[in-house]
């Protein structure tokens, strides 16, 4: 694209009046002082390269030093700065003020489907517990020493490579991209109805390990996934995949898991727990 075209395009998206100022409304909650959530409004000057995170940092540095929010990498990798921007779950670092300039106002609130600790900070422990429950690591029966299973030197991995072809990797690679930002949990109405629902990201990560050819822990994960609060409360709304900044597609992962869970459940009825 030529420089002229680029300038032209930018000019088309920028409102001509009130270029420099925008209203940022932030939902506040200070546990020591507040019993309810409340909105605080700030007028700030914005620039073309200002992200929502930059705007919040500006507000904290200049207008409200006690404003609390999480952030780290500023480049859509750490997953810390998930919040709700004008009603849509977003990462503050990769969402830009310029995209809301024509509205003249941006509202920002916490991922309130999780307990709010302070302002834009939520307690992620409910998610961490769900993540732990699906054992998000490679379980390899042959490599796990037990009382009855002594790992065979030929099959055990410690001194050897786990072999994986590019096709085997492609099977699950998409689901490894999750950064645990929890935008999908905010997007999921089933999480809103039932906070115990395993939810999108934990289910997608369970699916990721179930699809891994090096793993033999599928039966253990399906024990959790097939519980009433496992994967089954999902009604395939699909908004989780829509808001995912890393294109993980948790909604797809859950539907694929449901299809795989039924034979796993049927097998378990006969007391034979498949290890593969």
């Amino acid at each position, binding site marked *: 694209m030529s420089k002229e075209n680029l300038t032209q395009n930018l000019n088309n998206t920028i409102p001509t009046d009130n270029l420099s100022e925008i209203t940022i409304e932030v939902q506040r909650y200070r*546990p020591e002082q507040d019993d309810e959530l409340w909105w605080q409004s700030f007028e700030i000057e914005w620039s073309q390269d200002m992200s929502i995170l930059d705007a919040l940092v500006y507000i904290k540095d200049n207008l409200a030093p006690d404003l609390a929010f999480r952030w780290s990498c500023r480049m859509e990798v750490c997953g810390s700065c998930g919040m709700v921007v004008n009603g849509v779950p977003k990462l503050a670092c990769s969402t830009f003020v310029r995209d809301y300039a024509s509205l003249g106002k941006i509202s920002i609130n916490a991922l*309130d489907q999780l307990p709010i*600790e302070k302002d834009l900070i939520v307690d992620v422990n409910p998610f961490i517990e769900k993540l732990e429950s699906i054992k998000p690591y490679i379980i390899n029966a042959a490599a796990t020493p037990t009382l009855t299973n002594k790992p065979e030197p030929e099959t055990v991995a410690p001194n050897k490579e786990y072999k994986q072809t590019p096709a085997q990797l*492609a099977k699950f690679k998409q689901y490894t991209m999750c950064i645990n930002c929890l935008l999908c949990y905010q997007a999921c109405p089933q999480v809103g109805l039932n906070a115990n629902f395993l939810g999108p990201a934990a289910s997608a990560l369970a699916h990721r390990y179930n699809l891994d050819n090096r793993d033999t822990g599928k039966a253990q994960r399906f024990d959790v996934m097939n519980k009433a609060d496992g994967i089954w409360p999902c009604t395939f709304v*699909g*908004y989780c995949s829509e808001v995912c900044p890393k294109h993980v597609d948790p909604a797809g992962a859950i539907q694929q898991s449901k299809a795989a869970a039924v034979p796993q459940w049927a097998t378990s009825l006969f007391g034979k727990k498949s290890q593969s």
Partner: protein
Amino acid sequence: MSITDTKDITPTNINQAIDMAVNDQAISEDDKLHTQRRKPYIKPQAANWYRQNSFFQHYMLRELTSIPVALESLNLFWGLVSLSGNLEHWQRWVTVQSNFLMIIFHLLVIVAALYNSYTWFGAMPKAMRIQRGEKFVGENILIGGSWVTLVIILAVLAAIVYYFAH
């Protein structure tokens, strides 16, 4: 010697120190107080959540299509029962079907069923990925294939009806 500070930890009592840390015995009084001061705010989901954005509205529309389709299934079941009864029953059912309101209802059912197919065919590539080597079969191929299959099934059904009607 009891461990009351990190400087008390020696190579011989390090395991004991780890056990204490794991059992939260190493948490300072300040930290305990801070934990007790927490007052997380739990926000219940709004009762009208499904009206909050267009994505949820489309989702609810998709789910609502099941109602006319379910009613039509009951209607067809009634037809089946009438057919197994006497001629009078069957003729009464046929008369009801040709009522103006019933025709409107049938058209509504067709629209609802087609919209339901459109949404689920669109969602199918997520639920059923077909891998070829390191790539996956394209979404458009799967969605297009679904529509072609639907058209073939409808054509076969139409042919069967035409065959028995003549």
